[in-house]
């Protein structure tokens, strides 16, 4: 009986990607402390991918993981030391595997990007240790590198019979296998190739002289030609013995190209040989491709589900109690009914909270992809960086998490590129060679706070200021507080990096970071001390779906203010207001003057006849800027569910969304940042005009 395996593909892919993440994670820790448990974890992950892919008949993946496993096995048994090169290779293999799985998931061909890596693995394995020469631990290596391996150059003359292709044997494939043993130089002998009109495509008229540079014994080479032994002339001669041990062959010599000329068919095939080792360069392309119809899923802790089940159970009990009360209701049962209703309300709220908690995931999911990037990037920039991660278990909403990934990545890249200085500069500045980058996440009030701090050079506000004036972002000579100057780097088109590097400096980026975070209802703050380092603080709402709101009345309309943004409110009659700078109303809060926005005017709301002077000022804050909103009345506080205006209309500046109140009416949620921005934009326009 046939079982349709494809129904399990999704699970396989999810588990495999998870396994790859685990492998990557453990590999990154491997260099620091390579205890056996780490390697075991990696091994187990590789093993289950191998098992799974074999079950589903993804042969390439299974074969690839098999060689990986062999290497890991040696490491596990202590035969092979844990070195940067090995770890690098394994990391690249993880990337490669991810690429292969992605392609399989997208229903594409696996391609042959992995073949090079496989060869590299084979070479490493059969050679004992490619990088062994500079490692003291190689003594424990197995015997494959013994006396026979002394001979490192082989000359091979290979002259197949014309019918060799008909037997299903393919010289190129054999060469590729040889290539796995070391550097291979191939020379094709084309003397016997007839004129084109006599050429039979099924026949092979070529013979080859090969030179193989690598520690390999004769038997292994013979094995390669095992299948064709009787169908060819084969001569294998050692060329030289024990030269300097060639370090792992990286690139095939350009001579290989010579074989490819003249014969078109041949060229296509050998091109595979040409672009050998520089590996895994194509993996991200496949990643970016759209996946067909794979639904997103989240993993939920069993405790959360259990809580839900308990709650639903209790809800059912309450419901049956209530229906019993309702069946023969008389006024004596009123108290019972009321308490039942109270219980129902409480249970419903708890249920709501638990359901929301299902969407909450630990921020570690995002943080975990950063160590790899930091490692790669610091190597690329030749800086030494120590990444510290704190508070990985802090939970936040899945939607927020998905959208915070890119901004975080960008900030970390920036910190590495511009923040932390090169080793020389650090020593000059009297700091330790290794820079420190700290990622921290914690809850604060109704927000989640993510801090990215480095102990690098810091940001010079004077340079920022000059640059901003240069770019026309601010008028010259204007006085600005330090934080506001720093936050200029998040304006569009601002970049202080002298050289636009591969990593950052194009001036797109920081503004995108800011916009993404603003879109999530959060904000970014920068604090920096010259020579000591920079800290970016991201504040995000815990969830996007629900907001603690303060209902306010303006004219006949009811609006919702996010509770977190409110600082205080004062009756208008007691407020110290004045007009400055040509008719701009301001309110004096402690030592600061903050602009007043009259919501009724601002939103062109129909005038309510009664109200005039007895209103309130609500002092609110967004992105470090405070404004005072003139409103008519404060109503109650309640949690509101945020609905988007954009699903059927357009977004409106100053309004972040809408909600539905208890009476079924729609109420708009105010966006403080947008409000202050539209007021200041207008002022700018006036100035220009």
């Amino acid at each position: 009986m046939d079982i349709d395996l494809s129904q399990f593909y999704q699970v396989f892919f999810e588990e495999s990607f998870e396994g790859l993440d685990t492998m990557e994670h453990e590999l990154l820790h491997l260099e620091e402390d390579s205890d056996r448990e780490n390697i075991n974890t990696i091994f187990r992950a590789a093993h289950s991918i191998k098992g799974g892919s074999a079950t589903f008949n993804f042969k390439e993946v299974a074969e690839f993981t098999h060689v990986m496993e062999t290497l890991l096995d040696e490491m596990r048994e202590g035969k092979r030391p844990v070195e940067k090169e090995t770890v690098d290779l394994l990391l690249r293999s993880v990337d490669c595997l991810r690429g292969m799985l992605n392609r399989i998931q997208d229903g594409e061909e696996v391609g042959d990007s992995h073949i090079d890596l496989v060869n590299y693995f084979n070479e490493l394995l059969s050679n004992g240790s490619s990088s062994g020469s500079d490692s003291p631990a190689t003594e424990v290596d197995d015997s494959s590198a013994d006396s026979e391996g002394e001979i490192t150059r082989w000359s091979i003359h290979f002259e197949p019979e014309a019918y060799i292709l008909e037997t299903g044997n393919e010289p190129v494939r054999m060469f590729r296998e040889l290539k796995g043993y070391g550097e291979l130089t191939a020379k094709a002998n084309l003397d016997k190739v007839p004129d084109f009109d006599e050429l039979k495509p099924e026949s092979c008229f070529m013979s080859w002289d090969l030179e193989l540079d690598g520690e390999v014994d004769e038997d292994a080479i013979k094995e390669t030609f095992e299948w064709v032994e009787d169908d060819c002339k084969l001569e294998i001669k050692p060329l030289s013995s024990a030269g300097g041990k060639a370090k792992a062959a990286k690139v095939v010599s350009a001579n290989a190209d010579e074989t490819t000329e003249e014969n078109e068919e041949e060229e296509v095939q050998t091109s595979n040989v040409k672009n050998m080792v520089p590996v895994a360069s194509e993996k991200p392309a496949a990643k970016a491709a759209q996946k067909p119809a794979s639904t997103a899923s989240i993993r939920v802790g069993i405790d959360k589900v259990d809580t839900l089940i308990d709650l639903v159970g209790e809800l059912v009990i309450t419901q049956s109690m209530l229906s019993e009360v309702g069946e023969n209701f008389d006024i004596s049962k009123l108290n019972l009914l009321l308490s039942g209703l109270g219980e129902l309300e409480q249970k419903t709220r708890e249920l709501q909270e638990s359901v929301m908690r299902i969407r909450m995931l630990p921020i570690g999911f995002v943080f975990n992809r950063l160590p790899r990037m930091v490692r790669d990037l610091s190597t690329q920039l030749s800086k030494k960086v120590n990444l510290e991660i704190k508070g990985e278990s802090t939970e936040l909403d899945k939607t927020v998490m998905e959208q915070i990934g890119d901004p975080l990545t960008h900030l970390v890249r920036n910190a590495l590129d511009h923040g932390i200085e090169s080793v020389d500069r650090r020593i000059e500045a009297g700091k330790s060679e290794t820079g420190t980058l700290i990622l921290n996440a914690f809850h604060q009030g109704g927000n989640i706070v993510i801090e990215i701090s480095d102990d690098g050079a810091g940001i010079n506000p004077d340079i920022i200021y000059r640059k901003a004036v240069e770019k026309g972002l601010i008028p010259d000579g204007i006085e600005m507080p330090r934080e506001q100057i720093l936050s200029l780097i998040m304006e569009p088109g601002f970049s202080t990096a002298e050289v636009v590097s591969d990593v950052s400096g194009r001036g797109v980026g920081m503004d995108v970071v800011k916009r993404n975070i603003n879109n999530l209802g959060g904000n970014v703050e920068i604090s920096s001390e010259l020579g000591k380092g920079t800290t970016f603080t991201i504040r995000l709402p815990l969830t996007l779906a629900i907001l603690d709101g303060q209902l306010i009345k303006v004219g006949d309309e009811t609006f919702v203010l996010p509770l977190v943004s409110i600082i205080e409110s004062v009756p208008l009659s007691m407020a110290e207001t004045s007009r400055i700078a040509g008719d701009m109303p301001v309110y004096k809060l402690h030592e600061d003057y903050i602009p007043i926005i009259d919501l009724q005017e601002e939103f062109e709301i129909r005038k309510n006849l009664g109200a005039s002077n007895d209103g309130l000022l609500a002092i609110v804050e967004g992105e470090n800027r405070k404004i005072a909103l003139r409103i008519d009345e404060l109503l109650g506080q309640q949690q509101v569910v945020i609905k988007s205006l954009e699903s059927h209309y357009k977004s409106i500046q100053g309004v972040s969304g809408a909600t539905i109140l208890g009476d079924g009416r729609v109420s708009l949620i105010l966006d403080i940042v947008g409000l202050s921005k539209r007021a200041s934009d207008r002022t700018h326009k006036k100035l220009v005009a």
Partner: protein
Amino acid sequence: MTNEMMKVIEQQEQAIDYVEEAQEENGSQFLSFVVGDEEFSVSILKVQEIRAWENPTSLPNSPGYIKGVLNLRGTIVPVMDLRMRFRFKHFEYDATTVIILLKNNYNGKDCLMGCVVDGVSDVFSISESAIREVPDYGSAIDSRFTSGIMTVNNHAVTLLNLENLLNLDLIKHPYAGGNVSNG
């Protein structure tokens, strides 16, 4: 056996053809409604539902004909008053005032827009060929909003061009996002 099945299938196909022909003869169906003193119509396929008038929550700085937003079973739907959009002078909100929820497509996503009219009149079928062009002069209504005239029960009914009428880009709403000018 197979022959019998083939016969049944053929018969069914013929039946389907017949229905299609019948539909072609009868043309498409339209919903007509009254705005001011005139009758207008839209393709019935564009109508999601019809609701009694209720006062929507107004949007800040919206042009007068955007009355605000409504709660339609949990989603927020904008409401446009067609009488104001067509610059009719006299109108009121009374018992027959209704909101017709029309489907449209904006930037590839499906949106809804509530349209306030004085009353719904009829559903009728008319063939596409019976739709005449709108004479292009002197109408108070922006000619982009109309796409034809048809005769129903001896009086003229204007067919609306919903693509333009409901196009959010053609709604000039200050401070609103999208490709809208702030003018």
